[in-house]
C-alpha cells in the first residue's frame, strides 16, 4: 500500500461525516445492500410493472377496446375458427379459442394471481408466526400440540388434499385462498418456532421478564423483531409458490372458474391449441414464469441483503458477490465495525424447511 493510498484512506475516515454511524436501522442497511444488487433491483422493477399492469388492466382493455369477456368471432378468429396470432386485427398478443383478446385476459389473470399470491402469503405468514411464537415461547404441552399439528400439515400430500377440499367446498376465490394458506403457514411456523427457541434463552428476554413484561409483549415486541428477517425472506419466496399453486388448481379446473380469467385456466384452455396457436400457450406461460422468477430472485436478493454472509444459490455470480462482500466488510471496518449489528442471528437455518 503506497503512502498516498494510506493518506487517502485516512482522509476518507476523517472526512466521513459524524452522521455516517447515526442510527441506521437493520432495514436501512438491508435496503442499502439490496439497492446495489442488480438482479434484485431488476426483479423489483419487473414486479412493480406486473402489479401496475394488473391494477390498470381495465384501462388497458379500454385502450385496445377489447373488454375482457367479449368474444370477437369475426376479427378474433380466422376462417377455420382458430385463434388469430399476435398483432393481427388489433390483437397485440393474438386471441384465444373463442376470439377474446389474449393480452387483456392475461392482464386480468395477473390480478387474480397476484391477489391470491399476496393475500395467501399474508395470511400464512401471520398464522405461521403466531403459531411458531406460541409453540416456541411457551414450550411444554402447547408446543407439543402445535408442533405436532404443524408436522401433520407438512406431511399431507397437499396437492391431493387441496383438490379434495376444492371439490368439497366448490371452487371459489375464498376457498382457493383458504386452501393455499392452510398449506403454507406450517413452513413459516416451523422456522419461527426454531428461532424462538434460541432467542428466548437470550439475556434480554430475561431482562424483559425482570421488568414485568407479559408473555405476549415478550413474543411480539422482544422476539418478533429478531425474526422479521427470515420471515420476510420466506414470505417473499412464498408468493411465487402461491401463484403457482393457484395456477395449478385453476389448470386442473378446481380453481378460478371460466369465464373469469386466470393464468391457470387460460393454460388449460390453451393446451388443445398449442400445435397451431403457439402464442395461446407461450404468453400466459411466460407471464407466470416471469412473475414467479422475479419474486424468487427478489427473495434471494432480500436474503443476501439481510445476511451478507450467506452464499448465493446461483453459482455464476459468486465471484462478484465475494468481492462485494469484501467491500462491505471494509466499509464496516471503517465505520467502526458497527455497520452490521448481530447479523449472525439472521441466517435461515439450512435444511429446516
Amino acid at each position, binding site marked *: 500500500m503506497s503512502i498516498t493510498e494510506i493518506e487517502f484512506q485516512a482522509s476518507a475516515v476523517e472526512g466521513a461525516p459524524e452522521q455516517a454511524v447515526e442510527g441506521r436501522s437493520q432495514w436501512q442497511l438491508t435496503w442499502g445492500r439490496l439497492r446495489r444488487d442488480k438482479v434484485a433491483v431488476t426483479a423489483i422493477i419487473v414486479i412493480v410493472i406486473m402489479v401496475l399492469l394488473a391494477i390498470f388492466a381495465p384501462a388497458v382493455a379500454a385502450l385496445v377496446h377489447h373488454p375482457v369477456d367479449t368474444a370477437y368471432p369475426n376479427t378474433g378468429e380466422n376462417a377455420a375458427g382458430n385463434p388469430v396470432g399476435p398483432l393481427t386485427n388489433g390483437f397485440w398478443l393474438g386471441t384465444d379459442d373463442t376470439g377474446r383478446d389474449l393480452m387483456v385476459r392475461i392482464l386480468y389473470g395477473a390480478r387474480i394471481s397476484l391477489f391470491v399470491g399476496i393475500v395467501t402469503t399474508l395470511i400464512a405468514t401471520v398464522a405461521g408466526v403466531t403459531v411458531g411464537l406460541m409453540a416456541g415461547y411457551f414450550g411444554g404441552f402447547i408446543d407439543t400440540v402445535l408442533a405436532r399439528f404443524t408436522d401433520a400439515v407438512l406431511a399431507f400430500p397437499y396437492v391431493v388434499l387441496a383438490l379434495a377440499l376444492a371439490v368439497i367446498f366448490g371452487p371459489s376465490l375464498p376457498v382457493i385462498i383458504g386452501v393455499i394458506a392452510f398449506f403454507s403457514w406450517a413452513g413459516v411456523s416451523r422456522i419461527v418456532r426454531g428461532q424462538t427457541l434460541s432467542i428466548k434463552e437470550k439475556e*434480554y428476554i*430475561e*431482562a424483559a421478564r425482570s*421488568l*414485568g413484561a407479559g408473555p405476549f409483549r415478550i413474543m411480539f415486541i*422482544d422476539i418478533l423483531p429478531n425474526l422479521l428477517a427470515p420471515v420476510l425472506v420466506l414470505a417473499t419466496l412464498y408468493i411465487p409458490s402461491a401463484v403457482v399453486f393457484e395456477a395449478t388448481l385453476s389448470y386442473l379446473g378446481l380453481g378460478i372458474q371460466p369465464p373469469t380469467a386466470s393464468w391457470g385456466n387460460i393454460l388449460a384452455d390453451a393446451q388443445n391449441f398449442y400445435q397451431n396457436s403457439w402464442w395461446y400457450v407461450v404468453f400466459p406461460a411466460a407471464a407466470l414464469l416471469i412473475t414467479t422468477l422475479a419474486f424468487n430472485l427478489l427473495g434471494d436478493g432480500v436474503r443476501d441483503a439481510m445476511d451478507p454472509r450467506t452464499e448465493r444459490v446461483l453459482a455464476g455470480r459468486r465471484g462478484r458477490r465475494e468481492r462485494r462482500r469484501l467491500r462491505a466488510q471494509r466499509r464496516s471496518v471503517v465505520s467502526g465495525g458497527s455497520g452490521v*449489528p448481530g447479523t449472525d442471528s439472521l441466517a435461515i437455518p439450512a435444511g429446516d424447511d
Partner: protein
Amino acid sequence: MTDDVLVRVDNLVKYFPVRTSGMIRRTVGQVQAVDGVTLEIPRGKTLGLVGETGCGKSTLARCIAGLLPTTSGTINFEGKDITNLSRRAMIPYRREIQMIFQDPYGSLNPRRRVGAIIGDPFAIHKTVTGSERKRKVQDLMERVGLNPEHYNRFPAEFSGGQRQRIGVARALALQPKLIICDEPVSALDVSIQAQVLNLLSDLQRDFGLSYLFIAHDLEVVRHVSDQVMVMYLGRVAESGPKEPVYESPRHPYTAALLSAATAADPETAATRQRILLTGDVPSPIDPPSGCRFHPRCPKVQELCSQDEPQLEVKAGDMPTHVTACHFPVVAGENLAVVASRR
C-alpha cells in the same frame, strides 16, 4: 433493626431436576444450586456476594428477582412475602426490584433502539407515556453518562461500558429500592469497570438504592460492599461486615479466595502467602457429605466429612460475622504452611 432490612431471604433452596432425555423424562438427580441460604439486604447498603463460578450466586439472584421459582424457603421484601408470586401479583414488586445483567451484549435487544429499551419499564408499567416518556428516558441517559442525542441508536453502536450504562438506566427507570447486579462489570475492561462502579455508588448515594452485588472479583466486591457473603457450592461459607471478612477471614475458603486475589497494594502482595486449593469444585448434583468444602480444605479433619457446620459467630468476632466451619482460621495462622504439610 427490622426497618433497616429491605430484603430478608430465609433458608432459600433451589434445586434443578436432572432429567433423562427422550419422551419419558425421569428425574434422575438434582442440581443443588442453592441449598439453604439465609441473608439480609440492608436498606441503602450493598451486600456483596462472592464465590466461584457455579456456586449458585446467579441462581440466588434470579430467585430473589422472581425470575426463577424457588424449591423452598421464603423471600421477604419490606416484610411482605414475595416468594413464588404469580406474574401479575409480582408486578408491583418488579418496580421495586430491578436487575443489571452480566453480559452488556446479550442483555440488550439488538433490534430495538436504545430509547425503546430504556423506555420499556415505563411502557410495561404504563407510568409515563408519549413525549413525557422520551424526556424521562433522555434524563435517565444523561444521568448515567450517555449522550441523550443517541436516543435513536441501536445497542450495536455503543461500546461495552456504554451498553452497561444503558442497562443501568433501564434498571433505574422505575426508581427501584433494590437493584440486583449480577456480575455487572466482569465483562468490561478494567478501566471501564471503575467508571461503572463509580456510577453505581453515585446512584446509591443519590437515590438511596440497595444493591445485591454479585461478583467473583474480590477487589470489586471490597470496593462496593458494606456486607459481604461468601458462597461455596450453594451454601454460605462466611458472612459479615466487609472489614472483618476481608481483614480476618474465619473460613478457610474465604482465606484461600483472598490469598488468590491480586492485591492493589504491592507490599501486601509481596508478603502474602498463597493458599493453593487442590482439585475442582465438586459437582452440585452430588455434593460432598458434611462440610461441602472438606475435600479441598487445608484444615480438614474427620469431623468435617461427617457433620455439616452451621453458621455461627466464632470466638472474638462481632455478632454479625458468621462462619460455617468446625475449625475456623485463627488470626495469624498460616494456612499455606498447613496446606503444604498435608
